[in-house]
């Protein structure tokens, strides 16, 4: 097992190098740092001195790949590629374009992101699995048909309507909870209820439908028939045999997104003004802060790859038939 994980982690390195090169190409070769400076300082009436100053403040005034002016190993290290791209591998994200320490910001903003993401995930899983089991139990009846229609209707609504509608209904009309905002410590709970509810509701449609198909797939198999044939109670068939087997695809689907929970939800966080990593990313995009976007791209890929490795491990844990080799 350990050897397998190490091998998988080693396999991830070339992919991360690929991601790194791609972001470097996107951010520094497609547009030179001069272009970025001009965009930030205003395209017209900008002096070359101002551009040089802007670049020097942010460390963009070095050559891209190879520094001819330097000597020895510095020829390779005193470059944008080394400073801005290679250092990402050490999780040294450097400073944002307005001079803040990105690693520190990320560490701080991770907690509010998780405070939304984890409850939404758990509550959502519980509700979706229950609904899906209910539909699978009543399969072929009107309950099932209307449930499937309802989930198609629910998944046809954009997440933004859920958010705006929920904010309006629960926050503004009924005044049950604050519309947006965040507070430290336990006070945060009252700000988190609404986003979690909306996060759960917006996911019900698609997940219920997907999980229902998992249940139905297992329900048609021989071991279920055997379980019924030997006279087991329907509840025992449902929970002991059906649920246990349908959980395999559900769990692996959840595990792959677990690490990405750190990144937070772009929409929920920005609509509810929660200082997590999702709103951090959106703010960076709107302020055109390239350093942060670059850091988040890299971080996101690392987390995604970790998720892929976790899935393989999870398979062996939940499904003894699968052996890693």
């Amino acid at each position, binding site marked *: 097992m350990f050897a397998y994980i190490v091998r998988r982690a080693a396999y991830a390195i070339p992919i991360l190098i690929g991601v790194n090169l791609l972001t470097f190409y996107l951010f520094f070769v497609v547009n030179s740092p001069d272009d970025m400076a001009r965009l930030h300082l205003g395209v017209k009436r900008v002096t070359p001195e101002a551009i040089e100053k802007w670049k020097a403040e942010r460390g963009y005034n070095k050559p891209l790949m190879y520094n001819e002016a330097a000597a020895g190993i510095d020829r390779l290290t005193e470059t944008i590629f080394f400073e801005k791209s290679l250092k990402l591998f050490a999780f040294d994200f450097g400073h944002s374009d307005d001079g803040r320490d990105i690693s520190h910001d990320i560490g701080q903003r991770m907690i509010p992101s998780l405070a939304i993401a984890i409850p939404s995930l758990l509550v959502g899983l519980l509700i979706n699995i229950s609904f899906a089991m209910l539909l699978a139990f009543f399969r072929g009846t009107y309950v099932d048909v209307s449930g499937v229609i309802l989930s198609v209707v629910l998944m046809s609504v954009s997440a933004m*309507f859920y958010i705006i509608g929920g904010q309006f209904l629960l926050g503004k009309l009924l005044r049950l909870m604050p519309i947006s905002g965040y507070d430290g410590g336990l006070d945060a709970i009252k700000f988190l209820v609404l986003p979690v509810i909306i996060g759960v509701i917006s996911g019900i449609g698609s997940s219920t439908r997907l999980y229902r198909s998992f249940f139905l797939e297992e329900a048609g198999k021989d071991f279920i028939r055997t379980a019924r044939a030997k006279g087991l109670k329907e509840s025992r068939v449902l929970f002991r045999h059906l649920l246990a087997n349908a959980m395999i695809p559900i769990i692996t689907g959840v595990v792959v997104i677990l690490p990405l929970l750190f990144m937070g939800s772009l929409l929920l966080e920005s609509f509810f003004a929660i200082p997590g990593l999702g709103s951090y990313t959106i703010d960076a995009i709107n302020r055109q802060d390239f350093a942060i976007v*670059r850091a988040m*791209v890299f971080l996101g890929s690392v987390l995604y790859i970790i998720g892929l490795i976790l899935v393989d491990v999870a398979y062996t844990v939940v499904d003894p038939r699968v052996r890693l080799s």
Partner: protein
Amino acid sequence: MIMPVILWTDALIFLLVAITTAFALYARRKPHLRAPWRHVVCSRPGSMAVVILCAYIIIGLLDSLHYRLALESNDAGAETHYASEVLSALDALVGPLRTQTEKTYSAPFATHLFTRETIQQPEGGQTREYPRLKYGGRHLQNPAVDARADILRRSGVALAQTLTAGLAVLLLITLWQAHRRQQAFTTMLRTILKRRSEVPWLIIWISLSILALLIFLAANLATAYHVFGTDKVGEDVFYQTLKSIRTGLVIGTLTTLIMLPFAIFMGILAGYARGWIDDVIQYTYTTLSSIPGVLLIAATILMLQVYMANHPELFETTLERADIRLLFLSIILGITSWTGLCRLLRGESLKLREAEYIQAATAFGVRHSKIISRHILPNVMHIVLITVVLDFSGLVLAEAVLTYVGVGVDPTMNSWGNMINSARLEMAREPVVWWSLLAAFLFMFTLVLAANLFSDAVRDAFDPRLRQH
């Protein structure tokens, strides 16, 4: 005099239409290609979805015929100049909707503005009141009393028109079917009304009638009132949401058109060739798919913004600028979404190349290119089709999210994303301005729901594993 304008996305849409028509003509004569499509139309949700999607597509296509009007000039011999504003066939069709702009917000069917204004009375002194709208309910003498009756009268006219048109359509369908099947008219009518026909004509007829009702209602009411109100700068919200249809469709279809060649070519190549080619292609798509989609799109669009800001001379009109951005958005969405299909196709061709008929073809010495085009490609097309149709609704939804994040379509472009984005602030106003959100919601929801129902029908018809059950 008009000058046709063909934007980049227009050209690609026409290309897509040409490809689809060519395929449809080809598939007409092949029973094995026709059968699954018949299955789609014969399913009740499928037939309903087809009607709705067709309505959207017609509006989208009309909105893709762009032109510029000639400016009037006094001396006859002079070279004609064209207005800088690019219009579309849809603009010509809805006519007054585009030009009838008020001062600022007004509610649906309102005759007065949404906000108070200070008005100078003729006898001196000032009052603060809600002024009359310039266009909404302009024909009414006494709007407070007459408006309701007028709206009811117009709705009644629309209903009467719908009934007439609906009966005419039913007559035509029955006549046509009776002629084709060599049956008596009354027998055919009974078959249709009792839902015994193979194609669910009753459902199609009902959907068409509802559609007709909506169109007649719009035709009767939208010319005299703002049926969905007006937005902050007084533009008709109904017009905006009609114009947004094209944006949604372009994102949903062009993305697919752009990604398909990549995904099909690379996926089949990887599965068929194996070895180092497979390794390289797998590495490429794993790398691309490991970057979270939104972030990759954000990074690329940011770079496009930088490029556009530094090269303003490349774009003649704002519409062209917005159009290029829309095209790039489709390309980038295509780059981020081809990986899933590519992976599926690779797996399928890995399986297929071991199949006996392909082994046989190889043993007979058939060329690789021939094997791929004759034996593998037709056998993976159902996967391609299912993925394409499934992706469509997701892409329409993604447009709204991306636009909100700031990396979607151009802010000057009509799109549901932009409408929702502005509605966010309007919902915080007191009293609430809700109609932009409602209009965007209704139109977007209908399209996505129809697309979802359609994709379910397509999957049921084309997925051989599902057909066995």
